[in-house]
C-alpha cells in the first residue's frame, strides 16, 4: 500500500466521522467510496451506527442539541439510500422489533421520528405507525411484527388517557405480558408512567436507545 492509498479501516473511520460531523452533502459519496474500496456493507453500516452513537454521546455531553440529532438522522437516511439495497434483511433489527407511534388524538412527531432514527441505527427494527394512532392498530402491529416493545409519544396532556387505552387493549388481546411499553413526550412524567402501568419513561431520543436495549434485553 503506497502513501496515497487509504486503508480499509480509514474508509470506515471516514464514514463514521461523516455522521458525527453531520456531512449531509458528502455522505453518499463517502459511503460509495467505502464500498468501492471493498468494505462490506455490514461494516459500513456498523460504522454509520457507531457515528450515531458518538452523536448521542455528544448530545449527552451538551455539545449537540435536538437540531443536531435530527440532522444526524437525515445524514443517516442519505447514507442508507446507498447501503440498504446491499444489506441482508436480517442485518437490520437484530436487537429487536419496536413499534413506535404517537397516540390517538395527538399528531406531534419530531420526538417519535428521532427515536425511530436512533433505534434503527442502533440495530432495532422499527415499525413506525405514524401519528393519531388508534389502539386497535397498535395491537395489530404488535401481533403482526411480533414486537418486543412499543414506544408511545404523547405531547398533549389531554391525550394521556390514550396511554391507558393502549395498555388495556394489549392486555385484552393477551399481548401485554410479551411486550414492554415505554412512553415519552413533553407531558410525560414518572408519576404518569407509574399510574399508567408502563415499563419505562424516556426523556429524549438518546436515552430511548438505552431504554429499549434494556427492555429488549439487548
Amino acid at each position: 500500500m503506497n502513501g496515497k492509498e487509504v486503508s480499509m479501516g480509514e474508509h470506515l473511520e471516514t464514514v463514521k466521522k461523516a455522521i458525527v460531523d453531520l456531512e449531509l452533502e458528502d455522505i453518499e459519496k463517502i459511503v460509495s467510496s467505502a464500498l468501492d474500496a471493498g468494505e462490506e456493507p455490514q461494516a459500513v453500516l456498523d460504522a454509520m451506527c457507531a457515528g450515531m452513537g458518538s452523536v448521542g454521546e455528544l448530545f449527552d455531553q451538551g455539545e449537540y442539541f435536538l437540531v443536531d440529532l435530527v440532522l444526524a438522522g437525515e445524514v443517516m437516511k442519505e447514507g442508507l439510500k446507498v447501503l440498504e439495497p446491499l444489506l441482508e434483511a436480517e442485518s437490520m433489527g437484530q436487537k429487536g422489533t419496536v413499534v413506535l407511534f404517537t397516540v390517538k388524538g395527538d399528531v406531534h412527531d419530531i420526538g417519535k421520528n428521532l427515536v425511530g432514527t436512533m433505534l434503527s441505527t442502533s440495530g432495532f427494527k422499527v415499525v413506525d405507525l405514524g401519528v393519531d394512532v388508534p389502539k386497535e392498530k397498535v395491537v395489530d402491529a404488535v401481533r403482526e411484527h411480533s414486537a418486543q416493545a412499543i414506544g408511545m409519544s404523547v405531547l398533549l396532556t389531554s391525550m394521556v388517557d390514550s396511554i391507558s387505552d393502549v395498555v388495556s387493549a394489549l392486555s385484552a388481546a393477551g399481548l401485554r405480558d410479551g411486550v414492554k411499553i415505554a412512553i415519552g413526550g413533553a407531558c410525560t412524567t414518572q408519576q404518569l408512567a407509574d399510574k399508567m402501568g408502563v415499563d419505562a419513561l424516556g426523556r429524549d431520543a438518546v436515552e430511548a436507545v438505552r431504554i429499549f436495549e434494556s427492555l429488549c434485553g439487548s
Partner: protein
Amino acid sequence: MTEPSHVEKPLYLEGWCCLLGSRTERVLAALELREPDRVPTMDVMEEYANIYKILGRRPIPLGFLFSNKYTGRVIDRLAPLINRSHVMDREMDRFSYDRTAASVKMGYDASWVMHVPIWRFDNSKVGTDIYGRYYDVVFDREGNIGTPMYRGGLIKSPADWDAWDKRDLLRFPARTNVAFSRIIKDFGNDIFVMAGFLYGLFENSWQPLGFERFAVAVHKEKEFISRIIKFYEDHFCMMLEAWADAGVPGAIYTDDMAYRSGPMISPRMMRELYTDSLSRITETAHRLGMKIVAHSCGNVYALLEWLAECGFDGVHALEPTAGIELATVKEMVGDRLCLVGNMDITRILVDADREEVFQAVRESIQAAGKGGGYILAPTNSHPDISVERLYWMLEAVEEYGYYPLSA
C-alpha cells in the same frame, strides 16, 4: 373532572385590588424589579370553554359548525370564501376582546392578550396560517374549537419563501392596532395589557419549514434562515408600533426555544442567528415606552443570560415540569429579569386540592418574590385548567403576596 358551567368570582377578590395601588403600578414595579404592594398576577387564558365560563355566556359554536357532518360539508365548500371574507379573523378579534374581559372579571393584574387572526382553512379539517404552517382543526372536550394542531410547514426553499403571499402578514399590524385600540379603550384602566401574537423569530424560522428541513437549513443554508429571521424582525417591530399606537403598555414575545431537555438548538447558534434581531425588538419596545417579556416553554436555563443580554424585561413560563426551579432562576438572572409564571398546569391548576394550590402559590412567592421582580402566572394555557383553581390561585396571592413577604 367536571366544573359548573359558570364559576362565580369569590367576593373576597372584589374591591381589595384597587385600594392598595393600581394594577399598572403593581405590574410595572415588578417588571422594573422594584417591590410593589403585592406580587402581581397575570393570566394566560386561550381556551374558549374557560373564558366563556367566566363570562357566563356561551361561545359561538364554531366547534360544532366544523365538526358536524352537515355544516362541516358546507365549510368544506365555502372555505375559500371564509378565508377571503376574513370571517375567522373577526372572530379572533372578538375572542381577544372577550378573553381580556374575562381576565378583568377574574381580578388579574395583567393579561397576556394574544391576537391571532392568522388561520386559513382548506376545509373543515385542515388549514394553514399566514406564516406557512399547516394544521389539523381540533376541538376541546366540550366541542369548542381549539388552537389548531401543527402538522408541518409549506416553505421548503428560498423560492417558496419568495413566492409566499405575505399580504396578510403585512396587513396584520393595522388589524392588531384596531383590535387593541378597542381593548385598551374598554379595559386599559382595569388591567395591564400585555399584547402578544404567534410566533417569534425562532418558531417562525423552523415551523414553516418543518424541523427536519430546518435542521438542514440552519447548518447548511444560514443565509436562507437569516432572510426569514430579518423579515420577522421587521414584522415584530411593526407590531410593536401598532400596539404602542393603541396604548398597549406591554408585550409578550412568544417563542418556544426549548423543550424538556433544553434548547432545541445550541445557545451558540441561538446567539449567532437571533441576537441582533431580538436586541432590535427589545430596543424598539423600550423606545415606544413598552415593557417586553420573553415567553418560552421548556428548560430555558441555558438561555436565561442571553435573554437578559438581549434586553428583555422578564421571562415567562418557567415550567416546573421542565425542571425549572424558581429560586435557581432568581439567583441566575433575578437582578436583570422579572420572573413570570411557574404555576403548574399539568396538575396544580387541573385537579389539585385547595390546600395544594395555596401551597404552590406560597412556595413560588417565597422562591421568587423577595425584593420584587416576580409576577405569578400559569405557565401556559390548557383546556384542562380549572377555573375554580385559578380563583384559588388568586386568593392565595391575596393571602401570601403582600409585601413585606412573610419569611
